[in-house]
């Protein structure tokens, strides 16, 4: 009785073992542009377009702690397939999503983009990056930061996310309020 079809395990890279793959410049550029677009969609609250970045079996995953290699059968902060993501989107957009009616917004900055693996044949990519996200909500700001790992698959119209892993450095801390949108 799985809610989410489990993607293959994906550990957070250890800095010493993580290495950049030798990839064509255009791959590096396309991956960076994809990550920038993801940030723009989140900050622009373009929820459906963000969900559409995911492949049909794609999963958005924020582990409860960095030692995890899977969200399958283990607690996570987010572990969502497109159906659960759609529930989250519809809930945010519902006129009675009381806590979401207050003014709020985010600004993401993505950097340190490293392509760790590139399959020249299929175009599939594993890439790692770092983000800072500032959220403003009802006269208060919160700051989240950490790393993304994306498993991207390549289709006719560009990259799609197979798995997005988000490790926040403050993910294990106390949450003042909670997270309502994807980071």
């Amino acid at each position, binding site marked *: *009785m*799985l*809610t989410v079809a489990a993607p293959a395990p994906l550990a957070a890279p250890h800095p010493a073992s993580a290495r950049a793959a030798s990839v064509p410049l255009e791959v590096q550029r396309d991956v960076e542009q994809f990550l920038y677009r993801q940030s723009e969609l989140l900050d622009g609250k373009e929820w459906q377009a963000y969900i559409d970045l995911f492949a049909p079996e794609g999963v958005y995953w*924020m582990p*409860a*702690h960095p030692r995890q290699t899977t969200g399958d*059968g*283990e*607690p*996570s*902060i*987010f*572990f969502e397939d497109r*159906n*659960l993501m*759609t*529930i*989250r*989107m*519809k*809930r*945010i957009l*519902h*006129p*009675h*999503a*009381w*806590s*979401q009616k*207050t003014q709020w917004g985010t600004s993401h900055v993505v950097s340190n983009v490293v392509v760790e693996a590139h399959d020249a044949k299929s175009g599939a990519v594993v890439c790692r990056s770092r983000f800072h996200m500032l959220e403003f909500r009802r006269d208060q700001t919160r700051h989240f930061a950490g790393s993304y790992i994306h498993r991207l698959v390549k289709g006719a119209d560009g990259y799609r996310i197979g798995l997005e892993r988000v490790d926040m450095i403050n993910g294990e*801390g*106390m*949450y*003042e*309020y*909670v*997270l*309502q949108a994807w980071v």
Partner: protein
Amino acid sequence: MARYSINELRAMVEPDRVHRSTYSDPEIFELEMERIFNRVWTYVGHESQVKKPGDYWTVTVGRQPMIMIRGEDRKIHVLYNRCPHRGNLLIGDRSGNVEKSIICSYHAWQFAFDGSPKAIPLAKGYEGTRLDPTGPACAVKRAPRQDSYRGFVFASLADSGPSLLEWLGASKVAFDQMCDRAPDGEVEVVPTCFRVLQRSNWKFFLENQLDVAHAVVTHESTGRAAMDVEEQVKAKNGSAPLDYHFLSGFTMPLGTWDKMTTVNYPSGHSVLEGYMSLRPQDPISLNYEAIMKSKYGEARTNQILDTNIHHVICYPGLSVQPPLQQLRAIRPLAHDQTLTELWHFRLKGAPEPIYRRALGYFNLVNSPSTMVNADDLWNFRKQHEGLSSDGGEWVSLHRYLGRDDENNGVIRTRIGTSEAPLRNYFKAWAEYMTAGN
């Protein structure tokens, strides 16, 4: 000295309404710490959090920083997290293992896992002084009282008072129901604790847990969204994951919530019965029932699984959901600030898919991305700000007053949306706040 007299405190709680200062006044919070939280039994943790000798978790009891640590003797010790020398916290992390002894980072005073002194450097320096390096003044102070029930460890800062079992009273069903649902009769903690800070008084959390009328209003957006997707998935695949129902259940009309019952005990403990039918007849549940029957027999299994409890409040600091193995500990930090610690458990001997249900609930409802508690937290904050205003003095608790059944001080609601649990909490509150003074 307290600003409030006993009569003034008594006057804050009327049978059908309560004065806003019970939430908004920092002075009241000080008194609550002294008269409620320093007297009751507070949940410290589960024994399975500390498996090996030297394993520890730190926890706050009332306002006291404490350590729960497993001793060499396999016993669990609850100690003040304070070095008897110069007062440093002995342990600065949330959890871990101290290896051979508890060592203070300031002057290397060392203690056994039960808090007794083991080695104090520069012993010569104490010769001829009145400090005995092997005596009780050099031991880590223990919690005045500690006890556990079915693996759930509690501590009390009061030297005397009711025993843990006497104090739990009828609310011990929280732990019986959770453990009995395990074919092996016990549960094991999943060692991920989510912590959420709410900008409000602690009482809102407890009230909200048994305020069944709020659910359909507060959680409408999530209920509707989940219902939409659940129906789409059902239409496509023939069935939808059970987890979705944890969210779509909030679309039930108010009349359905009225069919639930709350049972309210004199100590403030209370039970919500009848929400969600948790004896589904799908293959996973039937397989689990078969295992249960092989361990407990048919009659006992039915008795365990037909107990329809949604959650139990052990007033004032704990909420337990036995059928989904969830536990929320409430730690008041200030009159307008409360920490909740969220845990879940595995039923020992139950098949993995049964654990996945508890996990689904934990991820969807209790994680920091919760689509449910998000709107509760928002309400708590707004409620606190509103009650701190001069826009009114009293909080209404009138709904269905006089239409509950009362027997030997135990109040059973006839109508689910009766505000009996709130009235009952405040009855217990007033008793604690005015007792023995």
